[in-house]
């Protein structure tokens, strides 16, 4: 295939991704609004899977065209982030059996696709050779792990936002699934007030309970608890990835110019994000801090990830604008 064909494929897949994500968003929202209508939710899942495939195709075509992993400009990295969000979303949905997750993650994925296809000027979209600063395997690993971690953290914190919406106006539940297992014992409130009425849909894990009478004695997590645990597991995955990304960046910086940490704005913001999610993880362990407060921290973390990813490029200069070292 020549470059022209590859570019055409990209343009096509770019538009298809946008359209499919729009459809997926609509389907998920409909499935939440009209829970009785069968199949909408499954179709939504199908659409998000198709979007994941078209984004993969787009990224692959770009990879073949430019000969390097597509994270070298905003267009490429935004579509890669979109892909990560879709993958994390599909994993979360499989894990949680929850239709609500998509209602929150799909609009974000849609926004990413829309921004990269419509808002970016053509010059920022085109693929090109790597600037010398990015020509390092460590660095490519650093960038891609970082973006993957943003995907996990974003979906995780979106699920926390969903948790906040679902428990809006309710008292905090004593939650289970904190790493010291503090909430593993029964609390009468938790049993008596099992989440919201609309939560008890057939999409929740509660449904399986009724389906097999033998296991009835075992209580299952309700919607709020499910969301809380899914959010925890995703952030628990995103946080290590962010840490590994930071380490890869630090090692590369140290090998390339002798300083593993230099407080440049992007670096600092990834540390800020890291601290916010560390606060989230530790808040879950603290008695009296379970439930809403960690979810609020995760919500703050969601915005912090965005600032780390985007904001800094517009706000400030620093090593990540490839200054003193290689800009010449």
């Amino acid at each position, binding site marked *: 295939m020549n470059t022209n064909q590859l570019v055409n494929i990209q343009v096509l897949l770019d538009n298809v991704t946008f359209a499919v994500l729009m459809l997926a968003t609509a389907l998920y929202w409909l499935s939440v609004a009209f829970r009785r209508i069968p199949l909408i939710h499954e179709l939504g899942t199908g659409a998000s899977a198709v979007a994941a495939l078209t984004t993969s195709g787009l990224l692959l075509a770009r990879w073949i065209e430019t000969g390097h992993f597509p994270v070298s400009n905003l267009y490429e990295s935004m579509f890669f982030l979109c892909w990560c969000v879709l993958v994390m979303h599909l994993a979360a949905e499989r894990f949680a059996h929850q239709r609500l997750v998509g209602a929150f993650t799909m609009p974000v994925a849609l926004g990413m696709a829309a921004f990269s296809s419509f808002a970016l000027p053509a010059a920022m979209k085109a693929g090109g050779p790597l600037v010398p600063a990015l020509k390092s395997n460590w660095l490519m690993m650093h960038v891609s792990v970082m973006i993957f971690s943003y995907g996990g953290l974003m979906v995780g914190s979106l699920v926390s936002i969903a948790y906040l919406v679902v428990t809006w106006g309710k008292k905090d539940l004593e939650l289970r699934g904190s*790493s010291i297992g503090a909430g593993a014992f029964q609390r009468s409130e938790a049993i008596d007030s099992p989440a919201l009425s609309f939560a008890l849909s057939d999409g929740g894990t509660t449904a399986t*309970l009724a389906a097999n009478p*033998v296991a009835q*004695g075992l209580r299952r997590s309700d919607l709020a608890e499910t969301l809380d645990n899914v959010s925890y597991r995703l952030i*628990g995955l995103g946080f290590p990835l962010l*840490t*590994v990304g930071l380490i890869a960046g630090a090692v590369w910086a140290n090998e390339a110019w002798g300083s593993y940490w230099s407080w440049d704005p992007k670096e600092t913001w990834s540390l800020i994000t890291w*601290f916010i999610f560390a606060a989230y993880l530790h808040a879950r362990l603290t008695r009296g801090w379970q439930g809403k407060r960690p979810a609020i921290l995760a919500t703050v973390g969601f915005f912090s990830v965005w600032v780390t990813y985007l904001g800094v490029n517009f706000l400030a200069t620093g090593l990540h604008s490839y200054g003193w*070292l290689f800009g*010449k």
Partner: protein
Amino acid sequence: MAKQAAKPGHFLWEELKRELNTGLGSLSLAIGLFLVIAVASILGTVIPQEESLEYYQQNYPESGKVVWGFVTWRFLANLGIDNVYRTWWFLALLMLLAANLMVCTFRRQIPMLKAAKTWKFYAEPRKLSKFALNTTLALDTPDALIAQLRSRRFEVHQKEGLVYASRGLLGRVGPIIIHISLLLILGGAVIGAFGGFKTQRMTAQGQNFDLQKVELPRLSLAHLPTWHVHVNKFWIDYRPDGSIDQFHSDLSVISSEGKELKRQVIAVNEPLVFEGVTMYQASWGVNSFVMRINQSPWLTIPMQAMKGGPGGQEAWGQALPFDKRGEIAVQVVTRGLQGSLMLLPFNTRTGEPLRNAITPARVGHPVKVLGQEILIRELVGETGIQVKADPGIPFVYAGFALLMIGLAMGYLSHAQVWAICLDGQLHLAGRTNRAQLSFERELSSIVENIAGQK
């Protein structure tokens, strides 16, 4: 023991120990510190750091348009916000976090791990019914349950109808390793701050630099090397399209007696390491050019970096007086070491360029400018070497490695199952610390399986 506690000294010690556990070692302190450090770090990305005093006086005035009504340069300077990450209170916060982490890890987490390791049976069904996940089945032996648990990689202990099974204890070890590795990284950073040094040296080809005058922090324990470095050669590889492919500096380390101790060509990503000191190719410039006018002797003329050359690119230049009355000068400009230059004559009084006398030139090729012959023999480059010694690096890297191991372990979920077989009933309960949903599913499929075998 109780009587001894009455002694005032001992009492104080107990009090201190309690304080250490609940105060300094507490999770709420940790969460508070995380958030405060995050906010302080945000300040440093919003307020420009390490600028000159004039910069702050200009941008954060005390009268007129005061930023947000109170952020004046004096305010910034007093709180150290012009250099947040090195200001005393920021470092104190980091130290407090380290202390918090240390107390928490050694006084809380390691005992907690020991508690998690010692397994215990429950003998009373009432105890099991307190678990959120519990059920009772009509079974008179726990064998089916034990087989199920074993096939799911649980480690099972049993004693006279009592069962305790667990899996994923490493998930409890993970956070401890994470915390210890963070201490290692912080320790490495402190060692680096006090035992190391860092500096930059711009040196022209053919010149030396030494490391005698390096700015060290107060309390530094670093000892500076007595050897110096000779830059044998500096050159740049260009691609056919004129962009830069790679920088090279040929360096020799020379002892104070003048003996060559080591020689190496460095490039970006290929530093020279000698006695714990690493030298990186980090920057470059054009130092000077060698020229003559008509039949004059060869002159070496220094060049200065010029900001914002054509197209915003880097350029170096120098103005030479060019006629006897000093009315005309020629600005010699180059973009790099490729050998092409521009000669731009201009009127010294008005600054006006003499457009039709602008002449391109190449190294080694004489050109005529305003009737005079100029020959530029050579452009001399200078290399920017970043010099660093950091004895903390092995600790930091060990911390990084350990941290990744700890993180991987810390994703595992520690699951525990208890059972009591009594009077034809199997009472069952379980809990886990992370993967609550999968565990619920797993436990109910275990229950289904053993109930189905009946």
